[in-house]
């Protein structure tokens, strides 16, 4: 059997590693100013969110979770449970860490929504844009994070800023997809009705499509938040602070207890945010139906 039959022919080799390296090096050397600007903007936003998050006293956060859970689920036992779980995070000494983590999550989610929602609207209108954007979204979700984390660190430095970028890359696709999906599945006759009364495109969007798609969009928001939380540990590997770095320290030092404590706190944060946003989404559905 000829060799090319059993082994991949060497003649067909193409080196894409070097051009990519060169491109990144070029960007670092020549576009530093631009990336510094991006970095500064993000950092300012992060600082602002951090200040806002840190204003909330511990008891106020627990009380808020209690009241919101009671309101959305209507069950006292559940409200007590979530308030208790949150209290537990403080008791095991991870309250400050949780705030640091929340800062990154909140910043990433805000930016993901700001970027992803309009993009979702855009691709719901244009099939061509949709065909263009979908593979990009797939790539964003499946490309291993570290692959883009390292160039991000070179361009933006170490710390919370590249963490936010990486989180956005990973967490943005659901809101884009669900916004587009929600808008596309609005009943055809409802859209025709709105058009037949002479709605402008903007009126159609704001008075009909978005409100009708709201339950689906809220499900996308929920997924985006969950994805952002799932990036916490990965982001700590590029110097993000908070519960993730606590988990990483636990791993690096083989201190299982430390890892589990911080991991549990992440789970608690995730569960509370998930149930609360789902509660809101459901409220929306009930209202809509």
């Amino acid at each position, binding site marked *: 059997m000829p060799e090319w039959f059993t082994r991949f022919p060497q003649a067909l080799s193409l080196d894409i*590693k*070097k051009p990519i390296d060169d491109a990144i*090096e070029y960007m*670092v*050397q020549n576009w*530093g100013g631009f990336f510094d600007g991006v*970095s*500064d903007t993000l*950092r300012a936003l*992060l*600082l602002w969110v951090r200040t806002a998050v840190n204003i909330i006293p511990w008891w106020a956060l627990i009380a808020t979770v209690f009241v919101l859970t009671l309101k959305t689920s209507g069950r006292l036992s559940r409200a007590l449970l979530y308030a208790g779980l949150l209290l537990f995070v403080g008791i095991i000494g991870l309250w400050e860490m949780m705030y640091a983590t929340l800062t990154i999550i909140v910043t990433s989610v805000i930016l993901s929504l700001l970027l992803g929602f309009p993009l979702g609207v855009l691709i719901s209108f244009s099939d061509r844009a949709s065909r263009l954007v979908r593979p990009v979204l797939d790539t964003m979700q499946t490309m291993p994070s*570290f692959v883009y*984390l*390292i*160039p991000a*660190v*070179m*361009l*933006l*430095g*170490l*710390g*919370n*800023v590249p963490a936010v970028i990486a989180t956005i890359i990973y967490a943005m696709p659901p809101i884009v997809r669900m916004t587009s999906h929600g808008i596309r599945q609005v009943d055809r006759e409802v859209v025709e009705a709105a058009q037949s009364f002479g709605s402008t495109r903007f009126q159609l969007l704001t008075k009909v499509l978005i409100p009708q798609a709201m339950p689906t969009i809220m499900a996308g928001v929920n997924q985006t938040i969950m994805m952002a939380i799932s990036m916490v540990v990965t982001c*700590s*590997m*590029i*110097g*993000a602070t908070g519960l993730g*770095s606590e988990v*990483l*320290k636990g*791993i*690096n*030092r*083989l201190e299982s207890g430390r890892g589990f404590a911080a991991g549990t706190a992440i789970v608690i944060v995730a569960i509370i945010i998930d149930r609360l946003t789902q509660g809101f989404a459901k409220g929306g559905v009930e209202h809509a139906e």
Partner: protein
Amino acid sequence: MKNRKIAWLCVLTSLMMMLFASASAQTAVFGDAGWDSMKFHNAVAMLIAKEAYGMDSEEMSGSTAITYNALKRGDIHIYTETWTDSIAPYQQDVADGKIIELGINYDDNIQGLYVPRYVIEGDESRGIVPMAPDLKTVADLKDYPHLFPDPEDPGKGRIYGAISGWMVDEIMRKKVEFYGLDSLYNYMDPGSDPALAAAIVGAYEKGDPIVAYYWEPAWITGKYDLVLLEDAPYEPELYLKGECACPSIKLTVCVNPEFYQNNPEFCEFLSKYATSSALTSEALAYMNDYDADYPETAHWFLQQHPELLDQWLPEDKAELVRSAL
């Protein structure tokens, strides 16, 4: 439909059996804790294992803590570059016989806080003027927190620290405190080695000032012109408190005890395996310059230094390797 499922099942089963079969044969498993020099030494030893001893070998990657633990358990057999001072339980484990220290790979390495040379001397070719001409020692950092600003905490400087979980991380933290730098700087946990390297590379390519923990030999310190900040001379009792320079760390070759018993001949070779910081740097530089992979670099390295084979191996085995090269 059902037939296809069964067919798939068969394929899967046979694949898994092949996997198990290959794993059950005695394959030497080398630990890869993530940095270049260790991977390079692994590649050299793996080449010799194959050519001289006919042994199959493979690498298993993970963090230092995880791979070291795997070495104790026997999932990993060989550690070609054990940074003994970075692993807190090392001495105890050797004393308890949980691992076997076969010899010293090399012990002329350096670690500490580095700044790019252009920070001190400037770089005319890149149009960089000296930023801190008088910065020489770790203690001098007191005067320059504004030069290394922490973007996330304006008003303070930032020192990129060692990776948490390495023992030297504790020492570096103490050092920052000892020199009174903790009120001026934030000691930042970079999270991981690639992230730390990326931060240094990014700053270097941009010509930005940075002060960071690193070590030699490594491709970073080989490729980029970094200057080690001086520290008080090494004193064993001061070192752990962070009050003096880091000593050269003994980088040993270690094996799992069970592997040691089963492979006396190969371990004999490993116990003689010795290189130096200079040799390692040379190989890493070659690798970086020619964009070679580790096996290629190992191949080139042994061609360049055939005398090492004579030091490490009995005559017949050395000849086997030489002819293979």
